[in-house]
């Protein structure tokens, strides 16, 4: 450990020079761009060169750097800059806890496996003479000594390595729900007790056969299977974690000057005022200071009712702002809100039980009872036919029927598929979605913001006399400032185009997808939204139009042009080639929708209210279709929830993300195709796994019952079967990694 020795020496040297020994900070950074172990040295050198850094540990395997520095002499930002200057990337590690947990878990599993495998080999050596020696060749006392040696080496296997199985069995018996661990634990314990009896009481009821070698080998095979499964689960989780990193997470902080700045949620501090849009989650605990709204705290507290909030009411980090944009004052900053978000996503994926698994669980209990019954019957019959073999037939039956492969068949494949999707930018919230995704035959796509991106094209304005706003730039600034309160794609386009004016809006109200209105300092009521129905558009070529009105009088119109997302056309064509029906379901003007639909060669329905969209999805489902919905925007939430499987664009409103089963983090349509292909492959692999596991169990049980399978062979066969299933699932995680396609030229939409 040359590097750590060196750093230790340096800090000692600094101490001698009398360097300030004030507060030190320790943080972990995740490193990007590391390709080999040698990069670790370069990065460590770059960080070490910063004055004020006490200690650096760079791990090439986990791609993390742990740095300790003096807070008064340097900062986390300076460290990240130094790493960037060396040609790599460093970001604060928010998922460090989850990673540490995984490391401990995998260390414990490896350790159990090693103890079992190492002892099994030694026991095998001690058992070899009894197998090889001819009758009478081995002195009885030597045989006894070897048996006692085997017994001693079996103790750590049973007491330490096999504990997960014994614990599992104990738990399932305590909760009176028979599980897969019961026959396994029973097999291990019966074999061990019988063999111990044979060693210490050779003339006793257990005969003189010892099975320590079988017990140890069985346990190590079983642990090897579990360890592989664990590795794969960790890989899937890592892939999900990396994918969540790509969802931007920033908050809008109000500055003293009245402006707005976008800052990382982590850098918020108590006392900050933060604007929170309708549909967004509150970034921190705090108090509502401007506006009234309702919040959904179900994620945090489990309270399913929406709660009305007015100024002065407390707000909880992570709960969702449902109705109107508001301003909150930050009071407590969650130590790691981002980490919590990742964790809840992990938990959701890991704990949500797919239907496939529920089916397995339904069968597991009768199956285990059948195994126990069969073993008991075999024991009874064999104790009459050949009492010497009765015991090992029972043990063989218990071991060979271990439905490990069966229980691994579905989860291993689904998790591997979820991980593979995560690596390609499709982040799943519900693992069940894979099943639905594979069967999808109809895809409904929202148009604005999903299929197309909006660009402002032109603005026409009349002045608003009497409001103090009397020229075009002032109107534009005012519109941008009001639009800044909304997450609608068109509002975002306006807010991004003009420099906003600093108006302290009051009584901000928004009807999602229709309009947003607020009162300015002089009590004029401004509204930004869809034009009135009887209004004749001034420029018919524009894709969309937003009107600004004051006290009911229209003063400006903003016209938008829209462009198709770069890969929409090719992705839609690919989906149609696969036999999937693609339809556009939009609340927009029917002519515009028809134009885009014609361009893509699909059906398109326009002027759909959220209720009409919901009805369309329902009626398709009644016809037996499996519907996928790809949406964006606040008013898509209910439709996304109704569809069999739904995706939201990564930059869509957060509410849509909340309802959607998955998020397309790179906003690429082609990822839908990738997800569908992977889901179909996953289901195919699940079917293969089920077929194999069922065949294996069906073939081996008769062999074990008739005494043709010794316990060690049963253990090896069972482990090999699990191994086959896991390796088969593993095929899903292979394949090309996510390739960032260069953005193609914008495709203008004809009108």
């Amino acid at each position, binding site marked *: 450990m040359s590097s750590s*020795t060196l750093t230790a020496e340096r800090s000692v040297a600094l101490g001698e020079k009398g360097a300030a020994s004030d507060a030190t900070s320790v943080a972990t950074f995740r490193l990007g761009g590391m390709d080999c*172990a040698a990069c*670790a040295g370069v990065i460590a050198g770059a960080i070490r060169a910063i004055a004020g850094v006490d200690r650096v540990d760079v791990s090439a*395997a986990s791609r993390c750097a742990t740095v300790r520095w003096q807070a008064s002499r340097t900062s986390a930002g300076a460290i990240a800059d130094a790493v960037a200057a060396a040609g790599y990337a460093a970001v604060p590690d928010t998922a460090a806890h989850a990673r540490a947990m995984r490391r401990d878990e995998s260390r414990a599993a490896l350790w159990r496996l090693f103890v079992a495998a*190492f002892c099994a080999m030694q026991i095998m050596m001690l058992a070899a003479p009894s197998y090889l020696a001819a009758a009478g060749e081995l002195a009885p006392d030597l045989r006894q000594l070897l048996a006692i040696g085997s017994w001693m080496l079996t103790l750590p296997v049973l007491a330490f390595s096999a504990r997960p199985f014994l614990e599992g069995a104990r738990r399932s018996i305590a909760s009176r729900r028979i599980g897969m661990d019961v026959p396994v634990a029973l097999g291990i314990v019966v074999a061990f007790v019988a063999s111990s009896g044979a060693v210490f009481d050779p003339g006793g009821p257990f005969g003189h056969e010892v099975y320590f070698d079988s017990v140890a080998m069985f346990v190590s095979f079983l642990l090897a299977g579990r360890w592989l499964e664990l590795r794969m689960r960790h890989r899937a989780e890592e892939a999900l974690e990396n994918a969540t990193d790509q969802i931007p997470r920033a908050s809008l902080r109000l500055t003293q000057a009245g402006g707005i700045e976008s800052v990382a949620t982590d850098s918020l501090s108590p006392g900050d005022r933060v604007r929170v849009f309708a549909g967004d989650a509150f970034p921190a605990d705090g108090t509502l200071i401007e506006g009234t709204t309702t919040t959904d705290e179900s994620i945090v507290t489990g309270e399913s009712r929406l709660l009305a909030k007015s100024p002065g009411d407390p707000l909880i980090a992570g709960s969702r702002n449902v109705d109107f944009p508001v301003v909150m004052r930050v009071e407590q900053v969650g130590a790691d809100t981002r980490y919590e978000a990742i964790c809840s996503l992990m938990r959701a994926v890991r704990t949500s039980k797919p239907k496939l698994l529920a089916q397995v669980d339904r069968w597991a209990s009768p199956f285990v009872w059948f195994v126990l019954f069969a073993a008991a019957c075999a024991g009874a019959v064999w104790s009459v036919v050949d009492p010497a073999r009765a015991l090992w037939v029972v043990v063989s039956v218990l071991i060979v029927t271990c439905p490990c492969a069966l229980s691994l068949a579905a989860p291993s494949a689904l998790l591997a598929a979820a991980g593979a999707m995560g690596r390609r930018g499709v982040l799943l919230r519900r693992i069940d979605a894979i099943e639905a995704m594979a069967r999808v035959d109809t895809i409904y796509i929202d148009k604005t913001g999903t299929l197309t991106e909006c660009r402002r094209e032109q603005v026409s304005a009349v002045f608003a006399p009497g409001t103090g706003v009397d020229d075009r730039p002032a109107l534009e600034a005012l519109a941008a400032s009001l639009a800044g309160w909304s997450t609608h794609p068109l509002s975002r386009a306006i807010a991004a185009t003009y420099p906003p004016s600093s108006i302290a809006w009051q009584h901000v109200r928004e009807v999602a997808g229709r309009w947003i209105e607020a009162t300015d300092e002089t009590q004029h009521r401004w509204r930004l939204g869809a034009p009135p129905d009887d209004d004749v558009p001034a420029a018919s070529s524009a894709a969309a139009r937003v009107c600004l009105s004051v006290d009911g009088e229209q003063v400006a119109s903003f016209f938008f042009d829209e462009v198709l997302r770069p890969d929409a056309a090719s992705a839609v064509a690919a989906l149609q080639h696969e036999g999937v029906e693609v339809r556009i379901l939009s609340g927009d003007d029917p002519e515009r929708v028809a134009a885009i639909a014609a361009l893509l060669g699909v059906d398109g329905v326009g002027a759909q209210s959220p209720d009409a969209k919901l009805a369309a999805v329902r009626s398709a489902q009644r016809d037996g279709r499996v519907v996928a919905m790809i949406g964006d925007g606040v008013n898509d939430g209910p439709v996304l929830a109704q569809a069999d499987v739904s995706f939201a664009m990564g930059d869509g409103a957060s509410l849509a993300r909340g309802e959607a089963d998955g998020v397309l983090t790179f906003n690429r349509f082609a990822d839908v195709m990738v997800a569908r292909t992977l889901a179909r492959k996953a289901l195919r692999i699940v079917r293969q796994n089920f077929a194999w596991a069922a065949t294996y169990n069906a073939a081996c049980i008769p062999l074990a019952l008739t005494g043709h399978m010794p316990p060690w062979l049963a253990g090896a066969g069972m482990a090999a079967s699990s191994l086959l299933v896991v390796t088969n699932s593993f095929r899903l995680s292979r394949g090309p990694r996510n390739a960032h396609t260069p953005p193609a030229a914008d495709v203008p939409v004809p009108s």
Partner: protein
Amino acid sequence: MDILYLLIPLSIVAMLAIVGVFAWALDGGQFDDIEQQGAAIFDDDTSSLDRHQRP
């Protein structure tokens, strides 16, 4: 062949000791990152050994 009565118990004790040593090594994190120490030789930095050898 009487020596077997000594050697077999000895070998068992030795095995248990090996398991204990491995436990210690694993717990100390020696298997967490196997490649990195090999690559440390390419490190430009002077190692602590070099520093002591310098006059």
